[in-house]
C-alpha cells in the first residue's frame, strides 16, 4: 500500500498521465450521478438506471466496432432507451421491471454479440463491463466536464417541477405540468449521467454510482436540499478514496469505488441520526418527548395506525 503522498506524486508524474485524468473523470461523474441519483432514489425508479445501463452497452459496442466515439454511441443508445421507458411507463398496467427483464437484457446480449465481431474483443469486453482507468482520451475529460455541468444546470433549472411530479403525479398533471416531458427530461438526464460514468466504473457497476450515494444521503437527512448536497459529496469522495485504494492496492478501480460508497451507505444505515438502525432502536425504547405530544394536540391518539392511507379504487 502506498501512502497518500506517493499517490499525489503519482498523480503528478507525467508518465502516469492517465491517472489524474481517470481521477478527474471518476470524481466528476460521481458528483453528477449523486445529484441525479437523488431524483432516481426518491421516485423509486432504480429500474430506469438499470435499463439504461444495460441498453447503453450495444451503443458502446457499435461505437467500438465502428471506431466511433464511445460517449456518443452510448448516449444515443441510452436516450433511445430513455424515450422507450418513458413511453412504456406512462401505461401503468405494464410492469416496468418485466419489460426491463426481457428487453434490456436482450440489448445487453446484442452488445456482446456485436462486440465479439471486433478483433481481440475479450479485453475490450472486460473494459466495458468493469471499467478502466487507462486509455481515457483527453477530449473525454472535457466532454465529461462540459456535459456534467450542463446536466447539473438542467437539473437545477427543472428542480421544482421534478419535485412536484415526484410528489404527486396526479396533482402535477391537474395543475397543468407536462408530466410526460418532465419524465422524459429526467430519464435523459439519468442516461447521460450513466454514459459519462460508464467508462471508468464499467457497465455493470454504474448503477451503484447512481443509487448508493443518494440512498446513503437519504438516510442522513429529511431535507431535500441537504440530501442533494450530501449525495454528490459522498459520490465524489467515494471516487477519490476508491481510486486511491485501487491504485495503491492494485485493485480494479470500479469495484473499489463502489465498495467505498457501499461502506458509506452501511455506516449511514447503522448510525444515521434519525433513520439509522441504532437511532430507531433507541427511539423505540423511549417514549415520545413532551413537545412532540404537544405538537400533536388536537389530533386523535391512535391516528398513526392509519398512516399509510388505505389504497382504494
Amino acid at each position: 500500500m502506498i501512502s497518500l503522498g506517493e499517490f499525489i506524486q503519482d498523480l503528478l508524474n507525467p508518465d502516469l498521465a492517465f491517472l489524474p485524468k481517470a481521477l478527474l473523470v471518476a470524481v466528476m461523474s460521481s458528483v453528477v450521478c449523486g445529484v441525479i441519483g437523488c431524483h432516481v432514489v426518491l421516485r423509486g425508479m432504480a429500474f430506469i438506471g438499470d435499463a439504461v445501463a444495460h441498453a447503453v452497452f450495444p451503443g458502446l459496442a457499435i461505437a467500438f466496432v465502428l471506431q466511433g466515439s464511445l460517449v456518443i454511441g452510448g448516449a444515443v443508445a441510452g436516450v433511445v432507451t430513455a424515450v422507450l421507458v418513458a413511453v412504456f411507463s406512462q401505461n401503468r398496467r405494464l410492469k416496468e421491471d418485466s419489460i426491463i427483464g426481457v428487453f434490456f437484457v436482450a440489448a445487453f446480449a446484442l452488445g456482446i454479440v456485436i462486440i465479439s465481431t471486433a478483433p481481440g474483443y475479450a479485453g475490450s469486453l472486460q473494459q466495458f463491463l468493469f471499467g478502466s482507468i487507462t486509455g481515457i482520451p483527453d477530449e473525454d475529460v472535457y466532454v465529461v466536464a462540459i456535459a456534467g455541468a450542463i446536466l447539473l444546470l438542467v437539473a437545477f433549472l427543472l428542480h421544482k417541477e421534478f419535485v412536484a411530479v415526484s410528489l404527486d403525479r396526479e396533482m402535477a398533471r391537474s395543475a397543468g405540468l407536462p408530466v410526460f416531458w418532465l419524465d422524459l427530461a429526467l430519464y435523459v438526464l439519468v442516461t447521460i449521467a450513466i454514459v459519462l460514468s460508464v467508462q471508468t466504473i464499467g457497465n455493470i457497476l454504474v448503477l451503484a454510482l447512481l443509487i448508493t450515494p443518494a440512498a446513503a444521503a437519504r438516510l442522513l437527512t429529511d431535507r431535500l436540499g441537504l440530501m442533494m448536497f450530501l449525495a454528490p459529496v459522498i459520490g465524489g469522495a467515494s471516487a477519490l478514496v476508491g481510486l486511491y485504494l485501487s491504485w495503491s492496492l492494485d485493485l480494479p478501480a470500479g469495484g473499489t469505488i463502489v465498495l467505498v460508497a457501499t461502506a458509506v451507505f452501511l455506516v449511514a444505515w447503522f448510525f444515521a441520526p434519525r433513520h439509522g438502525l441504532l437511532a430507531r432502536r433507541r427511539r423505540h425504547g423511549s417514549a415520545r418527548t413532551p413537545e412532540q405530544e404537544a405538537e400533536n394536540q388536537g389530533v386523535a391518539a391512535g391516528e398513526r395506525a392509519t398512516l399509510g392511507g388505505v389504497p382504494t379504487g
Partner: protein
Amino acid sequence: MTTSATTATPDRAVASPAEAPSPEAAVLRVRDVAVELGGRLVLHDANLDVRAGELVGLIGPNGAGKTTLLRSILGLVRRRSGEVLVDGAAARGASTSMGYVPQRHEFAWDFPISVEDAVMSGRVRRIGWLRRAGVADYRATREALDRVRMTHLRKRPVGELSGGQRQRVLVARALALGPGVLLLDEPFTGLDVPTQELLTDLFAELAREDGKAVLMTTHDLVAAMHACTRICLLNRTVVATGTPAELDDPALWMRAFGISQTSPLLSALGLSTTDRKADA
C-alpha cells in the same frame, strides 16, 4: 354524530354575505358529461352545478364513476361529450381556478420535504418555468397553512404526520392556488371519527366562510348527510341531487347503490320505515 353546529342549513350556506357571488351563479357547472374508459361508458349524461358556498357530497358505490367525474372536471380524462364550465367559461385542462385534493395515497409521503414546501409545490405551475418562488407565493403558502391550522407544523417532514394532518396538507396545497372550486376525493379514507369531524368542519368552513364551491366524494354517507349542504347521488350518471332533507326517498338510494329495501344502509340513513325528517 355529536356535532350539530356543522349541519349548515342549505339557505344559510347559499345566501352567504356580501363578498360571495350571487347564489344563482354556479361556479362549477357540469353539462351532459360522458366519459369512456377502456372502451366502456363509465359516465353518461352527468349534470351537476356547484355554487359558491356549497359543500356538495358526491356519493355512490365503488366504481360508480366518482373519481372519474372529478378527473374529467379537471381535464385529466378526456370527455367523450359534454362540457365543464368554471365561472361561466369552459374549464381548461390546466385550470388554476380549481384546487384538487387527490386520494391521499397518490402522494409520496416518504419524500424528504417539509409541510411548507409540500404546500408550495401546489404553486409550481403558477410560479412558472425557470423562476423561483416570490413573496406572493410565500404569502399564499402561509395563508393556506393557517387556513388548515397546520402553521405550527410547517417545518415537519411530511413523512412524520398523522393521517389527518396529511389530509390537511393536501387541502392546503390545493388552497395555495386560491381556487374558487375545491375537489376532494375521499378525504376521509382511513381516518378515525374525530379526525373526520375535524376535517368535515374545515370543509364546511371553506364553503361557508371562504365562499368556495366544494365538491367531495366520500363513502361515509352518514357524515355526508350531516355536513353537506347538498348531496349528489351518482351511479354512472347522476341519480339524484338535492339537500339531505330532500333525498328522503329510499327508492333513490336503492337505485344509486343497487341495494334492497331491507338494507341496513337505509336504516342508518333513517329512511327505512320511520319517516324521520332532518334533525334541523
